[in-house]
């Protein structure tokens, strides 16, 4: 164990109730300085609720929260000065151009050089002269990303940053996140799709039903990630050949087609399949809900039984 610097985000027993409905159940979260942290979970798991508490948009019911060493309840302004935030759902009603809004938001932060805004807009291929209300979902998301990054904050809090972006722009965005990390800044980003964060995140936490079910290195999580695999061979194969392979479960062999779920590395399956002529091979990542529901409920049951 080595001494780690003070965490950039730290919550202990973070709980949030909306009336009688509990949205967060005692979250313990630690995000280290300089890391890219993925905050994963299906829609409705409580990701946005947690993020909004960090910015003091909503107030916790119990527990402790420190962002950049300060409590959002008492030092919200100071925290927000040093944080760039992308809301999960951006709507603009204004007829004014995007450039106008970004200048205004920059001024609220004490001024942001126009060159920085222009450079980001160019990178994301965003036309700043278009009226805000006419922007598509993807373009609104770009405006949101520009305002989150433009003042080069120490901490970026991004709620579903890639939603609405086409694949090319997703890659550009991931490059921006890597650059932020290279500058020593911290990125906390939520997603309901593992693949969106797995290439860039150092660590990730998984939230389900308002409870934190895991916080792990991305590598460990990736190993855990189950994939749904479908292979079609040139000729029928025997089910016995594929049963009992390492990491393979939910096997279904039907003539020349094999369907199964692979946990972790597909190495054993690939080597076995290579004995035959493979016509097609599809591999799909199951959604997070399914993924972690299977894995972590199993773990809990094992834990409870022990």
């Amino acid at each position, binding site marked *: 164990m080595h001494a780690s610097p003070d965490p950039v985000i730290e919550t202990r027993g973070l709980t949030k109730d909306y009336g009688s409905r509990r949205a967060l159940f005692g979250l313990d979260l630690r995000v280290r300085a300089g890391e890219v942290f993925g905050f994963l979970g299906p829609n409705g798991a409580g990701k946005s609720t947690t993020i909004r508490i960090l910015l003091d*948009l909503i107030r916790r019911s119990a527990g402790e929260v420190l962002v950049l060493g300060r409590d959002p309840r008492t030092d919200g302004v*100071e925290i*927000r000065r040093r*944080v760039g935030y992308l809301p999960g759902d951006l*709507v603009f009603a204004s007829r004014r151009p995007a450039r106008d809004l970004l200048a205004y938001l920059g001024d609220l932060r004490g001024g942001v050089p126009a060159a920085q805004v222009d450079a980001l807009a160019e990178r994301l291929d965003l036309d700043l002269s278009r009226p805000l209300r006419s922007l598509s979902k993807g373009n609104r998301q770009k405006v949101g990303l520009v305002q989150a990054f433009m003042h080069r904050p120490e901490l970026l809090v991004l709620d579903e940053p890639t939603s609405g972006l086409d694949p090319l722009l997703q890659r550009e965005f991931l490059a921006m996140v890597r650059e932020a990390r290279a500058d020593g800044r911290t990125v906390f980003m939520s997603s309901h799709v593992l693949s969106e964060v797995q290439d860039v995140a150092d660590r990730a936490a998984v939230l389900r039903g308002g409870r934190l079910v895991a916080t792990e290195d991305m590598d460990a999580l990736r190993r855990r990630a189950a994939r749904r695999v479908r292979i079609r061979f040139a000729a029928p194969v025997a089910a016995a050949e594929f049963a009992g392979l390492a990491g393979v479960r939910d096997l279904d062999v039907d003539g020349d087609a094999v369907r199964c779920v692979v946990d972790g590395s597909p190495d054993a399956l690939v080597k076995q399949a290579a004995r035959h002529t493979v016509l097609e091979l599809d591999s799909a990542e199951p959604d997070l809900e399914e993924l972690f529901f299977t894995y972590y409920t199993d773990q809990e049951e094992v834990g409870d039984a022990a």
Partner: protein
Amino acid sequence: MRRNVFGRFLRDHLRTLVGWSVGVAAVTALYSAFWPSMRDSGDAMDAYLESLPEGLMESMGWSSLATVEGYLGATVFGLLTPVLLVIAAVTLGARAIAGAEEAQELELLLAHPVTRTAVLVQRSAAAAVFVAVLGAVVFGTLLVLGPAIDVDLPVDRLLAACVSVTLIALVYGAVALAVGAATGRRAPALGAAAVLAVVGYLGNTFARQVAELEWLRFGSAFHYAMDPDPLLHGFDLGRTALLLAVPVVLAALGALAFTRRDVGV
């Protein structure tokens, strides 16, 4: 110059303000332009009015339609501009916090280094400026048009009447803003302000003729602003101060509730 919440809110509503200004100027000009013909038929009009039940004239606040103060007091200042300015102020007040929140615009602003109180204060001030401009439009229209249509009022009394109308609108606008800030929802903000304004207007009207309803006037901004008639008596310092204090107190209460709740849920 740095852009701030105050300036941005006004800028965002510039088109709306221009639209309202044109409308308020047109209505003011149109109705005051009837005055010369009204005066010429004044005797006949007064005779007609005398034939009406006594209570009706009193309740409508028509002291006399044969004087310019009586005519403007009954039309432009008695009904038309208060209604227009109250509607403008209430819709803007409801929009300032609750409307922006329902449109999901508020979250982005509040994620910046500003306090909620600052946002509410600056937007309230911007809304007050908006309403004051409309009051100034009434004043300016009558000032410029006056000589041409024989509306010959002392400037100070004309100003007092325009300020009174503006203050009525500010009171109900502040109700909408405060309720919206406390609830985050536009419907209750609009509802509360509309109910209070209608009850305030009708209450003030009925109380003039039904002694048992006299109490209704105490909750009515119309009563404090229009009685005694500023067109006849000029400024009433005490009542003007009261009408200025009410929106300030309402905004403060709204801010208190706004800073204590969750935003955008």
